[in-house]
């Protein structure tokens, strides 16, 4: 069990979040949702150890070091001519010597093949689109194999197909590696579909995380996002949340 307990967080000198505490199970994927500026990125950066505030993270009572926490920032633009495969290898930079063992290279190649990136393995990062760069950086973090993975809007530049495959890969990683994944998302439907629990960050605080059905309700969405949600169900029972501007929803949909 992961335990995360943090003090009040600030951004640029302004208070953003009040003190918080929550727990995650091994194999769990938790979504962090909230309106713009609520503090999702601030929360993830603090947990990753990238802010002035100290946020202790423990796994089964033992302190988790920074090396065991993976973090993908929201701003991902890369201006380096490093190849895709070199970029993925950097995920384990602490464990690499001057010579990279062939088995590590083979492992990186296998991961690229698994994520559908093998055909661009030799391409420089600067030659990739924003979406391709984002997929490579997700691959890099997966190659890092952290115990706790923090992803800040990892699907922001991805097309529909790759949004689904990226979130699916993250969930598979959490299950297979016994790790935990916290993913900040704007798309509430994707969050409801892929995350075991959802944490709402809004109005200067974090609510307690719970299952998507319990957290993503009209009572939480309307005041926090200032939209009128319409809840639909797919054939497989997955929840779809369609936002409408307040007071402008089509009467037939009510």
């Amino acid at each position, binding site marked *: 069990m992961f335990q995360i307990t943090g003090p009040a967080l600030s951004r640029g000198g302004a208070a953003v979040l009040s003190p918080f505490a929550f727990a995650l199970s091994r194999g769990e994927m938790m979504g962090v949702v909230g309106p713009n500026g609520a503090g999702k990125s601030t929360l993830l950066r603090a947990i*990753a150890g990238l802010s002035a505030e100290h946020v202790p993270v423990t796994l089964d009572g033992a302190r988790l070091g920074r090396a065991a926490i993976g973090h993908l920032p929201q701003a991902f633009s890369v201006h380096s*001519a*490093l190849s895709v495969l*070199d970029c993925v290898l950097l995920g384990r*930079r602490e464990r690499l010597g001057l010579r990279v063992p062939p088995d590590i290279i083979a492992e990186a190649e296998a991961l690229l093949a698994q994520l559908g990136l*093998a*055909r661009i*393995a030799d391409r420089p990062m600067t030659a990739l689109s924003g979406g391709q760069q984002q997929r490579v950086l997700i691959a890099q973090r997966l190659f890092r194999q952290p115990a706790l993975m923090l992803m800040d809007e990892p699907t922001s530049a991805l097309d529909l197909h790759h949004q689904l495959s990226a979130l699916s890969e993250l969930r598979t990683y959490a299950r297979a590696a016994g790790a935990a994944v916290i993913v900040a998302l704007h798309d509430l439907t994707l969050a409801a579909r892929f995350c075991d629990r959802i944490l709402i960050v809004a109005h200067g605080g974090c609510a307690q995380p719970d299952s998507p059905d319990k957290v993503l309700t009209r009572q939480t969405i309307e005041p926090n996002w200032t939209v009128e949600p319409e809840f639909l169900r797919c054939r497989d029972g997955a929840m779809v949340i369609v936002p409408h501007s307040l007071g402008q929803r089509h009467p037939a949909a009510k």
Partner: protein
Amino acid sequence: MTVAADPLARWRARAARRGVAVLAATLVLSCLVLADILTGPSGLSLAEIWQLVLAGPQGPDRAGASILFQIRLPQTAMALIVGACLGLAGLLMQTILANPLASPFTLGFSAAAGFGAALAILFGSALALPVPAHFLTPICAFLATLAATALVWLIGRMKGTQPEILVLAGIAVMFFFQSLLSLLQFMASPEVLQQIVFWLFGSLLKANWTTVQISGAILALCLPFIARDVWALTALRLGEANAESLGLDVAALRRRAFLITAALTAAAVSFTGTIGFVGLIAPHVARSLVGEDHRLALPVAAVMGALILTSASVVGKLLSSGAAIPVGIITAVAGIPMLLAVILRHERG
């Protein structure tokens, strides 16, 4: 699967080609070292040089041995060491500051060395310090370089050591030391002014085995620290935010690299004088040959720095059969078109 295997095969082939590029650069450097040893006003042939090598420093041909062991070999060794120092320092600077135009020269370290040297030349004899006269100038140049580094770092620290602040601080420090140097030149007598100007030219003529050993020892001391950070420096090429998120302490890396850069620059310019453009050009050539993987880019930058300076030494001797043209002048003249090429290449992205 065959479609997927092709790019990976290409990646492996490119890695192999980079290894060949390293070997080729080293081979070209070896040829230039030989050319540098063979070139000089005394006109020693390859066979004569070989005889002198076999006879050793105490051989029967005292004049020839003196030319080879006391003049040519120390100068060639100094060109290798100084070039390697400047190439490494340039690449470290460009990586930690994420700026393709950063170098020890553009950030004011060389200007500070010039000021330190001028200070020693102008006031050294009057101070009567317990230091041999021929060492006072390099010591002052060394200390001034370290002082300039500290100044740039302290100014940058006020704004969280952000790369753009460090670059601006470096430019300010460069103009500051250049102004002070101009003041000293204004105050100097014609004879002293001539000494200062000669030092500023940047020449290998000042080299001897003692200076080679000192500069070589500083370079050797820096190498393990550079080797330790090769992956961290490569990760920094992905951008500061990405590198931090990969667990890299970017501020600590910048601090270490800045300190090493200062030591390398001081080791290079203190005994030879101001040599521009090598620290700027060598990293670009290295990256174009082997890419941004610093396991290869750093050694190749060192080799390219040594290659540029050795070439300049050979050209300087060939152009002027009497007294060799100082390498600082050659690198400055040749460096301008190279710099333009770098800028245009960078603009094209």
